C-alpha cells in the first residue's frame, strides 16, 4: 500500500510558486494577445471584402482544427527551419497559444456580433450612422454582454492550456513540478498538488462566470 507523504512538497514551495507565477503571467499574456487576434479574426471574417474574409477564415480554421500540442512543437521546431525565425521557447509558446486561443475567440466574437438583430444596425443606419458608428454605439455594447460568458470560458481553457508549454521547457507550474517529482521521487504527491492548485484558482473563477451569466440573463 502506497504511503502518501505530502510533507515532502514543502521544501519545493518556492519552485511551485515560481511556476505558478509563470503560469498566471503566461495566461494573462495569451488571453490579452488572443483577444487581439480574436478581434482581427472576427472582424476579418465579417468583412465585406472577400480576400479579407478568406484570410480570416483560414487563420481561424488552421488553429481551431489542429491540436495545440502539435502547434507548440511546430512553432518552436518547424517555423525556424521554414521561415528562418529563431524564437525562444517562451516567444514560440506565447505565439502559438495566443493564435490558438484567438481562433476560438474569433468565433465567439463573430457569433456575438451576428446574434444581434439586424433591425438594430438598420435603426442606426436610418438615423444616419456610418457602419462603424452603429457597430460601436449599437451592436457591440449589446454583443459584448452576450460574449462575456463564452469568452471567460475560453480563457479558463487557455489557463489550463498553458500547462502544455512545459514540453518546450518553459518553467511553468507543470514544468517545475516535473523537476520536483524527479528530485523527490514523489510524482503522485507532486501532480496531485498541481491539480489542486489549478482547481483552487479555476473553481472560484467559474463561480464568478456562472453568477455573471445569471445576471445577464435577468437583464435580457
Amino acid at each position: 500500500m502506497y504511503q502518501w507523504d505530502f510533507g515532502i512538497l514543502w521544501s519545493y514551495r518556492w519552485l511551485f510558486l515560481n511556476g505558478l507565477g509563470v503560469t498566471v503571467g503566461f495566461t494573462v499574456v495569451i488571453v490579452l494577445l488572443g483577444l487581439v487576434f480574436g478581434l482581427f479574426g472576427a472582424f476579418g471574417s465579417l468583412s465585406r471584402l472577400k480576400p479579407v474574409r478568406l484570410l480570416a477564415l483560414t487563420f481561424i480554421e488552421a488553429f481551431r482544427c489542429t491540436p495545440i500540442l502539435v502547434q507548440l512543437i511546430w512553432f518552436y521546431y518547424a517555423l525556424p527551419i521554414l521561415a528562418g525565425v529563431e524564437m525562444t521557447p517562451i516567444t514560440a509558446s506565447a505565439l502559438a497559444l495566443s493564435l490558438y486561443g484567438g481562433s476560438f475567440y474569433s468565433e465567439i466574437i463573430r457569433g456575438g456580433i451576428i446574434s444581434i438583430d439586424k433591425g438594430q444596425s438598420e435603426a442606426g443606419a436610418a438615423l444616419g450612422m456610418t457602419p462603424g458608428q452603429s457597430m460601436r454605439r449599437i451592436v457591440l455594447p449589446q454583443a459584448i454582454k452576450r460574449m462575456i460568458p463564452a469568452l471567460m470560458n475560453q480563457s479558463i481553457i487557455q489557463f489550463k492550456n498553458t500547462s502544455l508549454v512545459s514540453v518546450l521547457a518553459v518553467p511553468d507550474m507543470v514544468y517545475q513540478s516535473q523537476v520536483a517529482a524527479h528530485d523527490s521521487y514523489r510524482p503522485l504527491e507532486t501532480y496531485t498538488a498541481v491539480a489542486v492548485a489549478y482547481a483552487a484558482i479555476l473553481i472560484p473563477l467559474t463561480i464568478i462566470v456562472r453568477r455573471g451569466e445569471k445576471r445577464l440573463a435577468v437583464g435580457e
Partner: protein
Amino acid sequence: MSETSKIEIRGLRKSFGSNEVLKNINLDVAKGGVVALIGPSGSGKSTLLRCVNLLVVPDGGSVRVGDTRFAFGDGSKLPDVKTLAKFRATTGMVFQHFNLFPHMTTLENVMEGPVTVRRMAKADAEKLARAQLAKVGLAEKADQYPATLSGGQKQRVAIARALAMEPDVMLFDEATSALDPELVGEVLNVIQQLASEGMTMVIVTHEIAFAREVADRLIFMRDGIVVEEGPARQVIDNPQETATRAFLSHFHRTGALPPSNAAP
C-alpha cells in the same frame, strides 16, 4: 408638381436574386404631402419605402429627396458609406418592430442620433430629446428601458427618436402591424399630429381607414408595380382597378379614428 416635390423617384428597379420586387416605379411626394402605400404582402411596398432612404440600394433608376439625388444602375457608382449616412440623417424611419436600442434608456435612445450623428452637445441633445418625448406623450418614461414599455409606447419612442434628427421626411414601415389592436390608436394619433404639422410622410400601412383619413395620396402596389394611384379617398371609396377592389374588399374602409384621448 416635380418642381415642388420633396421626394421624386424615377424608374426604380430592385431584384433580390431572381425575384424582381420593384419594376420601374415612379413616385412623387409633394412637400408636406402624405402618401400611403398599400398592397398585399410581397407587393414591394416595404422595399420601395426602404429605397427612399437607401436602406435598400436599388438596382436601377433614381431617388431624390430634397436637393440630394442618387442614380443607380449602368455605369453609376454606388454612393460611399459617408455619403449614404449623411443622406439618411435627413429622413426619419419608423420600423414595424420598433428596433429601439435595448441597452439604452428611452431618453438615451432619443438622444443617440443627435449626439452621435449630429455631434450635438449632450445638454442640448437632452433638451431636444425630452421635448420630443413630451411631444409623443412619454416625458415621464425618459429614464425607463424599452423592455418595460408597452408596444404602443415603444413605437412612440421610436417616432420621437426619428424626430430628434429633425428630418424633412418621415417614413413609416408598417408602424402599427406589430401592435395589439388596443394600442394602435395611440401611435396613429401621433402620426396624424405630424401630418397636421405639415411633415412630409410616406406610410406603408394596412390601416385602410387611417390611410383614408390622413393620406392625401394613395398608392396601391401589387407584384412590384403601381396598380392604382390617386387621391386617397377617391381610390379607397371608388377603386378603378379590379386588383385594388379585390384587395380593399378585405378591409373596413371607413370609420372614425380612435378617439384622440387614446394617447395619454
